[in-house]
C-alpha cells in the first residue's frame, strides 16, 4: 500500500507539476527549433502554393479530422480509465500525466493548429532531404503520397496533444462523479473490479463521458475550421473554395459543443 503524509503529497505534487512544465517547455522549444531549421534551408520548398496544398490536405478532409480525433478520443478514454481505476491516487505516473493534462487543456486550440503546421513542415523538410539524397526519378511522382503520410502523422500528433488531454480530464471527472457508496455496495456483493466498472460505473458515467468526447471533438473541429478559414481568407480573393469547408467545420464544432452542453444539463437535472 502506498502511504504518504499530506505534506509529502503536496511536495510530490509540486515537484511533478514542475517536471510536467519542464517537459512541455522542452517539447515546445524543440518544435520551434524544428520549424526554424525546416524553414531556413528550404525557402523555396515552403512556398505559398505548398503551404496551401499542405493546409488543404492537413485539415480540409472531413473524414480525416473525424476519424483521427475519434481514435484520439477513444484512446484518451482508455487512458482515463486506466489512470482513474487502476492506478492509486498517489502514483507518480498518474500525478505526472494529470499535471501534463492540466497544462495542455489550458492552451487555446488555435495554438495547436500552428503546432500541426510546425510538425508537418519539419517532417516535409526531412522528406525532401531524403528524396534529394536518393534522386530517383520515380520518387518525384511519389512526393504527394509521402506528403499524405506526413499529413497523417502531423494531424495525429496534434490531436493526441490537443484532443486526448481534454478527453482524459472529462472522463476522469465523469468517473469520479460516480459516488463511492455505489461502488462499495457492488464490491461487498463480491463483484470484481471489472463487473463494478461495466455494470455500475460506466452506465452512470456514460452520459458525461459521451459529453466529454463531444466537447473534445468540437475542439478539434473548431481548430480545423479556424485554420482553414484563416488561410482561405489570406490566400484566396474570391469566396468559395475552402470557405464552404470552413462553414461546415464550424457548424460541426458548434453542434457538438451544444450537444455536449445539453447532455451535461440533462444529466445534472436527472440526478438532482
Amino acid at each position, binding site marked *: 500500500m502506498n502511504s504518504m503524509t*499530506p505534506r509529502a503529497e503536496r511536495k510530490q505534487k509540486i515537484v511533478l507539476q514542475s517536471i510536467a512544465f519542464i517537459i512541455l517547455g522542452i517539447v515546445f522549444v524543440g518544435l520551434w527549433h524544428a520549424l526554424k531549421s525546416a524553414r531556413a534551408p528550404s525557402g523555396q520548398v515552403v512556398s505559398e502554393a505548398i503551404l496551401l496544398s499542405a493546409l488543404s490536405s492537413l485539415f480540409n478532409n472531413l473524414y480525416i479530422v473525424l476519424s483521427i480525433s475519434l481514435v484520439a478520443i477513444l484512446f484518451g478514454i482508455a487512458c482515463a480509465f486506466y489512470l482513474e481505476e487502476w492506478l492509486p491516487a498517489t502514483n507518480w505516473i498518474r500525478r505526472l500525466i494529470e499535471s501534463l493534462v492540466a497544462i495542455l487543456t489550458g492552451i487555446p486550440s488555435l495554438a495547436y493548429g500552428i503546432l500541426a503546421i510546425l510538425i508537418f513542415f519539419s517532417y516535409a523538410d526531412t522528406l525532401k532531404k531524403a528524396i534529394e539524397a536518393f534522386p530517383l526519378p520515380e520518387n518525384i511522382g511519389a512526393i504527394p503520397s509521402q506528403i499524405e503520410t506526413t499529413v497523417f502523422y502531423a494531424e495525429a500528433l496534434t490531436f493526441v496533444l490537443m484532443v486526448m488531454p481534454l478527453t482524459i480530464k472529462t472522463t476522469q471527472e465523469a468517473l469520479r462523479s460516480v459516488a463511492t*457508496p*455505489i461502488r462499495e455496495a457492488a464490491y*461487498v456483493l*463480491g463483484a470484481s473490479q471489472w463487473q463494478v466498472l461495466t455494470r455500475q460505473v460506466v*452506465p452512470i458515467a456514460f452520459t458525461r463521458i459521451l459529453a466529454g468526447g463531444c466537447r473534445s471533438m468540437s475542439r478539434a473541429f473548431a481548430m480545423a475550421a479556424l485554420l482553414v478559414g484563416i488561410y482561405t481568407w489570406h490566400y484566396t480573393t474570391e469566396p468559395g473554395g475552402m470557405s464552404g469547408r470552413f462553414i461546415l467545420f464550424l457548424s460541426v464544432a458548434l453542434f457538438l459543443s451544444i450537444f455536449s452542453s445539453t447532455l451535461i444539463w440533462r444529466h445534472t437535472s436527472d440526478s438532482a
Partner: protein
Amino acid sequence: MLSEKEQSILSIRNLNIWYGDNQILSSLSFDVQQKRVTAFIGPANSGKSTLIRCLNRLNDFTPNFRFTGEILFKGTLLGASTDTTALRKQIGMVFRKPTLFRHSIYENVAYGARIAGVNQSEHLDTIVEKNLRKTGLWDEVEDILDETPEQLSIGQQQLLCIARALVIEPEVLIFDEPCGELDPIETVKVETLVRDLKNDCTLIFATNKRRQAARVSDMAGFLYGGELIEFGATEKIFTNPQDNRTEQYVTGRLG
C-alpha cells in the same frame, strides 16, 4: 473438541491501522465465533467502521490506508495475495445508508446472483422471492418488482439491501450501523431480522446505540479511542464490566 458454536470464524491478532500518519486502531485482538452476533459499541470516531471494513478488505480502496497484524478468516491469513473478490463473496456487508443500484427492485436483489453467474430466469425468480421473504419484504414489493426502489421508505430500502446481501449466502454478514437512519418501528424490524439470521450465518454488528447492542448481540466489544477496551459476552459487558470506562459508557456517563 469444540462445538460448532464455539469455533471462531474470524481471528484478529494485534491489529493496528493507520490512515497516513494517524493511527486509527491500536493492538486489537479478538475472536468472532460462528453463528453468533458480535456487536461493537463505542462513540463516534472510535474506529468501529474502520475495524469492520477491515474484515472484508473494503479499506483497500481508502488512500493511505495501512495495517499491521493478522486477520485470520477460517484459519487462513488474509494478506496481500488474498483474492478479495472471493473473500467478499463469503463476507457480506450492509451499510448505514441504504445504497441501491439504479435498477429495478428485482434486479437489485438478483445482482449478487447475476455476478456469480446465475442466468436462468426461473432460478433467479426463486432466489429473489426466497430472500425477499426472508426479510419480510415480499408482500410489500411483490407487485412492484419491476419498478425502481426509490419509492420505498428508507426502512424498506434497508431491508432490500439486506435481502441483496443475503443472496450471495455469505458466511459472515457485517452490519455497519444498519439502523442509523431508520425510525423506531423500522429499527425493530431490522433487529428481529438480525436475531433470525443468526441461525444461517455469523453476524457482526457495529452500532452506537448501547441498548440495541444489548438487545441483539451475544458477544460485544467496546471500542474507545481506537482501543478495544473490553470484549466478552454481552451480558457480562452490560451487567458486570471489568473496565471503568466500559461501565461509564454502558451506563451513559461516557461518550
